């Protein structure tokens, strides 16, 4: 069983920074983690890249070949990835053995979720190759300043998630940049009635039914709960990682192995 995190979120939400901090954290914890770059337009990396989509295709090359702009080139690159799932991707995945943990740093553009099925097919392919996959959705906490913006963030997260059909963890990133943390608390553990009152207050009256429907959604599906991440604090990274591990069911195989060892030891002693 192998494990994969798909790190997604709007441009500028802190995905690559998260990946590099996660990598550093795992190094100090002596835990193996491989970061994969899936952004064909990325240029600079703060982390060691174990696998890079730019070896397959890059935005610059496509822009030149097809004489198109950066947005069209990105979509084209992702479509190219989809065509190469069975050759390039499988070859690269052979470098990783059982129990290996991969973190995929994805492009920020929402179009790759809404306009092309490539990421969905990518995820299906990983699952077929015995990967436990979960999505990690990052949202910049500086934008979640009131309940309407929080709902807005949930909608954006859902618009990506609906395509992926994966268990996921939502993260409020850049908590270290947030100056007033008192507002955030109510969104980390949403109290539905208060939130609904807030929405009704801030939105025009005709949206009352929509507000109610969305709050019920938040209540029903804990998938719209957010975990804060402050990259300055080891404890914060550790907590986020433990949430993701739970999601991915990482470590359950490992426990079984220890049990087997005990059994062997028991037999020896006898």
């Amino acid at each position, binding site marked *: 069983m192998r494990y994969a995190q798909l790190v997604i979120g*709007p*441009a*500028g939400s802190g995905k690559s920074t998260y990946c590099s901090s996660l990598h550093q954290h795992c190094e100090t914890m002596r835990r193996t983690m491989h970061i994969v770059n899936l952004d064909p*337009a*990325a240029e*600079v990396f703060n982390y060691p890249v174990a696998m890079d989509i730019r070896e397959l295709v890059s935005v610059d090359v496509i822009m030149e070949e097809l004489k198109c*702009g*950066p*947005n*069209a080139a990105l*979509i084209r690159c992702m479509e190219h990835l989809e065509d190469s799932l069975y050759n390039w991707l499988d070859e690269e995945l052979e470098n990783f053995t059982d129990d290996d943990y991969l973190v995929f740093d994805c492009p*920020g*553009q*929402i*179009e790759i*979720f*809404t*306009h092309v*099925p490539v990421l969905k097919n990518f995820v299906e392919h990983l699952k077929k190759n015995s990967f436990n996959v979960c999505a990690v959705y990052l949202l*910049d906490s*500086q*934008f979640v300043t009131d309940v*309407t*913006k929080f*709902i*807005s*963030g949930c*909608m*954006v997260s859902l*618009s990506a998630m*609906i*395509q992926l*059909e994966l268990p996921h963890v939502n993260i409020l990133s850049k*908590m270290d*940049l947030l100056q007033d*943390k*008192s507002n955030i*608390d109510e969104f*980390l553990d949403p109290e539905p009635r208060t939130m609904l009152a807030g929405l009704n207050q*801030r*939105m*025009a*009256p*005709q949206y009352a*039914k*929509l507000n109610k*429907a*969305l709050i*019920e*959604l938040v209540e*029903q*599906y804990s*998938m719209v709960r957010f975990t*804060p991440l*402050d990259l*300055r*604090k080891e404890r*914060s990274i*550790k*907590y986020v990682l433990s949430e993701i591990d739970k999601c991915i069911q990482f470590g359950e195989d490992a426990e079984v192995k220890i049990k087997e060892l005990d059994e062997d030891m028991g037999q020896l002693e006898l």
Partner: protein
Amino acid sequence: MDPMESSGEENIVEESHKLVDSLDKLRVSAGSSSSNFKKKPVIIIVVGMAGSGKTSFLHRLVCHTFDANKRGYVLNLDPAVMSLPFGANIDIRDTVKYKEVMKQYNLGPNGGIMTSLNLFATKFDEVVSVIEKRADQLDYVLVDTPGQIEIFTWSASGAIITEAFASTFPTVVTYVVDTPRSTSPITFMSNMLYACSILYKTRLPLVLAFNKTDVADHKFALEWMEDFEVFQAAIQSDNSYTSTLANSLSLSLYEFYRNIRSIGVSAITGAGMDDFFKAIEASADEYMQTYKADLDKRKAEKEQLEEERREKEMEKLRKDMESSQGGTVVLNTGLKDRDAAEKMMVEEEDDDDFKIEEDSDDAIDEDEEDEEMNRFYV
């Protein structure tokens, strides 16, 4: 506030502070301009996914306003566009050179566009005053946004620009949908969820423009929006996507559709233009009835928050000075009494060592604010 502490922070988040200042400035001026609130022109902000046809659609809008003798004004906010098929009255590219920004700040293409927009946003009050001066001569202001939708919808500068408009003129957001690419129900839902997020973020009236109807008719979309059972059936027949979440979402989206206007348009053929402008006018009326009233409320809220913040800061200052000096201090919010003010400055400097220790990384754990966060830390 301790001057040394604030300068340290500014070095790190200099740009975002500048943006926050712009936002503050705009909100303060919103108070004065909402009393001179104009009913015209109507601001139409065109947003949409990359490739949905925003610029072509805007071109069509420009042509239509000209043909119909409506007075339009065009604002281009896309710093990276190569060439526009129409002439823009105000163009971000005149003020900010995107390639220069990339070079100077050593950024990639997305960073370059974001920063260009940030730079432009700090001057945006000037743009608003230009339009204000001409308000009596204009019917519509057409705004083209950057190719990538997040750069406008999920950025501080996008928010500033939207707020600047919305606090002075009736503003309507037009979300352009790439109709041919949205024929799969899941993709459609994904797109609609995103439109819903824009509605909640901006809190402005939203018009959906189903573009490229010359390639694919948008009737299927209208059907899905009117009858959610048809939509749910469509989801279930698409792959084996059976999920209670999808069903719940489609119910929520049904409420969403009832509150927005949807028009099928074609930038190429010009179809749907009259209906589109009718929808815009109706949305502008909606704006005047609901959002305008909200504006005054927002202004009062903002002033109250400012007052609370000021009181908190003064309390903090009072506490610090008491604990470090031990003596009583006469506080002055104004500079009427110069000597007292100077005394305050001197005492602040004495506090420097004490304050820096407080703010060091080791002391972060003791910070009261973070107690609430502690349950999220292992």
